[in-house]
């Protein structure tokens, strides 16, 4: 399963840069990044090539952070690519806590990252329906 690194930051200038600066120092590459923003704080969610090292580096600096397993689903970069997956979610009454997508190969492949409550169950369900789920190696081998 793919790992997502979550970091809690204050919602003020320079805080995201504090994190990317640390990653740069360790030569860690970013594949995806999204931020959920609340009034006072933000939650950085990122997919990196060396998740464990990134986690250690950031937590050593005192940040509140966590490594979390998420579903990274390979989809076609074509109209309706996402909709086919969401059909399965809707039919099986699966709620999405958070999600984002990024393109790996334009016009060909994209990745849809999704957070759900019962991750194992959803993973099995998706695989049964013929979808490919990516792990860390897959994500960076693409």
């Amino acid at each position, binding site marked *: 399963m793919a790992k997502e690194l*979550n970091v809690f*930051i*204050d919602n003020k200038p320079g805080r995201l840069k504090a994190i990317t600066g640390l990653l740069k120092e360790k030569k860690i590459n970013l594949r995806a990044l999204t931020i*959920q923003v*609340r009034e006072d*704080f933000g939650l950085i969610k990122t997919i990196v090539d060396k998740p464990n090292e990134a986690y250690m580096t950031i937590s050593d600096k005192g*940040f*509140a*952070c966590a490594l979390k397993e998420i579903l990274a689903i390979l989809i076609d970069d074509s109209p309706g690519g996402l909709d086919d997956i969401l059909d399965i979610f809707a039919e099986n009454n699966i709620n999405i*806590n958070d999600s984002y997508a990024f393109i790996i190969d334009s016009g060909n492949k994209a990745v849809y990252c999704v957070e759900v409550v019962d991750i194992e169950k959803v993973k099995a369900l998706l695989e049964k329906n013929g979808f490919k789920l990516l792990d860390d190696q897959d994500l960076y081998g693409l």
Partner: protein
Amino acid sequence: MIWNEKIETMNLEDLKEVQSKRLKSMLDYIYNNSTFYKNKFDKEGINIEDIKSIDDITKLPFTTKEDMRDNYPFGIFSNKSKLAEIHVSSGTTGNPTLVGYTKDDIGLWSDVMARTLGCAGAKPGDVIQIAYGYGLFTGGLGFHYGALEMGLTIIPCSAGMTKRQLKIMEDFKPRILACTPSYAMYMSEDAKDMGMDPRKSSWEIGIFGAEPWSESMRTQIENTWNILATDVYGLSEIIGPGVAQECTNKEGLHVFSDVFYPEIINPTTGQPVKEGEDGELVFTTFTKKAIPVLRYRTRDIVSMTNKQCKCGRTSPRISKIKGRTDDMIVVRGINVFPSQIEHVLVNIEGTTPHYQLVVDRSSKNLDTLEIHVEVEQKIFSDEIKKLTQFENKIQDEIESMLGVSVKVKLLEPRSIERSIGKAVRVIDKRNI
């Protein structure tokens, strides 16, 4: 008007005699009726027969907030079987502060509050709008009793429902307004929103207290409402409001020293300071029956003068509150101690002991309290939903403890500045 002319204008020698006599009978009363004071005197080898006059008061021990808390609920009381009323205020940690009144105490409260009203310029027949909270807080009822005693027409509005307050003011034309100074300012915003001209209000006199406020705020209130803004001082451990009040000259607050005897001490040494110097205000209640207190340390910093006032009252006058000996803050009339917040936080998993209280005054002149809390690195939740729930949980627990609304702000670990020595727990941005 001077409500109790005989006492309030008594020459200082006669007053001293009254004070000496009352101190002696008070000591006799508490020694024989309060377990707390009996034990304290016996332990410290104090013989109350050695106390001959008010000048000997410095030989007697202090009473502190901790004494009140440690002997909760009735340990300090001299009479707990004939209580007419009890009031409770939030305490530093754990136990709240309980105060009680016998029927005679309510009579005393009514008298000092009538003096307070008279001092501010009220006279029988006036209409008063009481916008201090009624309930466990002593503000509302204290004013109520005094107004009843003096023969005023009372509009017991309590605090809140501002538009209705303003409508009542327009309809019934009260001459006197009693509320916290910040609420007086807050109401002016709503008045303007309603298309009213605050300068044309019926209020001529304001009696403002329950929180510290500055001379500049006085000017602001007076200009906004076209009103005489006077300062009232009190604390529930002594009686509630009615301990001291400014007269219309606004040159210090007259202490009703025949019943509440004031001393100003050096908070470190406990020794009296020279007249006019700043120090901690200490009170002895001579005639209270349920819970008389001896040399109670208020933790409020003031100065005091014995010079006679132009108004004719002879009692000493204290300055406005200049500070505190502890880190208590007053937000919308509610006492808040950082230790209370700490008490809540240590019991919530996922927070650190690093926190700060940020007090500010909003554009609508209402005090706001923000609690800044660092999240713990380990139990950090990675879902916005859970973080929000976490924030709400802290907020709910703090609000239910303090009884005042707060805003909680989660911060990164290690983002609150660490200090060597005493941590800076309170940032007060109000200009008071």
